[in-house]
Each structure stands twice: as C-alpha cells, then as structure tokens.
C-alpha cells in the first residue's frame, strides 16, 4: 500500500523545496519564503501523523458532555472517529513560532534593505568569512 507512506514522503518533498530555496537562492526574500515553505511542510507532516480515516475533528459533540450522555459511550465514540488531538496542538504551537520567526525575519530584511539598498545576499557581505 503506497498510500501508507506517500503523504509523508510528499511532506518531505515540500520540505526539500524549502531547503533548496534557502540554500541556493541568493535573494533575501526567497530565503524567507524557503523557510516558510519548510515550516509549512513540517506542520503538514505533523498534522498528517494524527490523521485517522473518519477524519472528524477532535471536538466532543454537545450531546456527549458529561451531564448528558453516558461517559464511557462518549469516550468510545470519540475513540472510534476522532483524529489525534496532540499533533494538532503541536502544530498550533509550531505555527505561532513560525509566525514569530517570520515577523523577525521581515524586520531584519527591512533593516538590511535600508542599510544596503538591496535584497541581494551576495552584496550583503560586510562580514568577512
């Protein structure tokens, strides 16, 4: 069954596209874009890890709240259809971290453009080595 691994491999392909952009492109914005692509790839990988076939969200339907339904029934129903909530929580955290890093990078890109007048990384080389 190729479908058991193909989604994960596609995530790695996306990851590599990002990595390629970071390493090979010499435009600063392209590097930022590469990092965002990479973050998205990793996030997708994490989301796909938690996937289970019925693919219903990990939200307990109101009918199953403790006071209304039998607890064990609710738990069992959740077990039979819900996806794994943990990777989703991880991805939420990871998205936030990604946004923070992107914001910082944008600020740095602005400052570098102000100082050097260009986004070209081959011209932004005042440091030796």
């Amino acid at each position, binding site marked *: 069954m190729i479908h058991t691994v193909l989604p994960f491999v596609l995530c790695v392909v996306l990851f590599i596209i990002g990595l390629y952009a970071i390493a090979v492109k010499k435009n600063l914005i392209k590097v930022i874009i590469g990092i965002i692509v990479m973050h998205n790839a990793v996030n997708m990988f994490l989301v796909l890890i938690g996937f289970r076939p019925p693919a219903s969200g*990990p939200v307990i339907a109101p009918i199953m709240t403790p006071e209304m339904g039998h607890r064990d029934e609710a738990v069992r129903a*959740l077990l039979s259809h819900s996806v794994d909530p*943990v990777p989703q929580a991880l991805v939420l955290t990871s998205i936030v971290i990604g946004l923070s890093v992107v914001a910082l990078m944008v600020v740095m890109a602005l400052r570098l453009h102000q100082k050097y007048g260009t986004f070209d990384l081959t011209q932004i080389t005042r440091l030796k080595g």
Partner: protein
Amino acid sequence: MSETLTLLYGVIAFMLIAAIVAVETRDLLSSVLCLGALGFGLALVDLIVGAPDLALTQVVVEIFAVVLLIRTVVAREDTTKEFIRDTPHVAAMGAVIMAILLGAYLCFQQLTPFGDPPMIMGASYMRAAQQAGATNLVTAVLLDFRAYDTLGEATVIFAAIMGCYALLRTRGKKEQS
C-alpha cells in the same frame, strides 16, 4: 478513505506546485502571493484531515504573514541579478537533498502507516478531557494537559515582538559626546 485521499493528494499537488512557483518566480510579489496560496492549501489540508482549529489559525496567520511580506516587497528596489548561486554550493546542496530523500525513502517504510497512529498520549488525553470539561480537545491539550508548552509559545511570540522593537530602533548606540 479513498475520497479523502484523493482530495488530500489533489491539495498537496497544488501546494507543491505553489511552492515551486513561489521559489522559482523572478517577480518577488508573485512569489509572495504563491506563498499565500501554499498557506491556504495547508489550511485546506487541515480541514480535510479534521483539524478545524488549525485551518482557522493557519488562514489568519497566513493573511498576516503575507501582508507583512507584501509590505516588505512592494516599492522596494530589488537589484538581485541572477538567482542561482555558484556550482559548489549547488552541488553540496544536491548531496544533502539526495541524502534526505534517500533516508526518507529507506526509512519511511517503517513509519507507522498513514491513518493508524499509535496515539497513546492522545487517547489518554481524550479520556481526561471528558472530565476536564472542555469540548474542544485541541484547546484542552493546549491549555490544560500541555499548558506549559503554550506558556513557551506565548513567550516565543513575546520575544519576537520585543526583538522587532529592538531591531527597529533607529540607532543602536548612543552618540559619543
């Protein structure tokens, strides 16, 4: 299962195309817009695999990031001549990429199959969430079982914003009197 998979592959293919275009286009604005498309593709993937929280957050964050990037790119002169770096660099990169692909190809066969996670932590959280009283399990995980992670997450964004303030100062050092 198969319909979900078809949808999933379709969206992932769209994302891959968007990513390649975003990386390869010469015009920076188009590139940023393609990045937005990639992000919305990811939001779609989230919806397909049953993660509405993530889809919501992803859309909002993508809007914010794309607005930031567009404002960075628009009306700024870009003098980059050619896009490809020198050969040794590309060769080294190619080697790394091949290594990762090879590793992924060899090792991913042994991953837990797609759609059958062991979910040991997740399942035990599900039981406990019944008692905790939250109906949204993701929020229960974020703010109850793993709330300490969320403290770290809030700290990261705090650090980033402090960093933005610090880096946007006009002068770093006081002028010597």
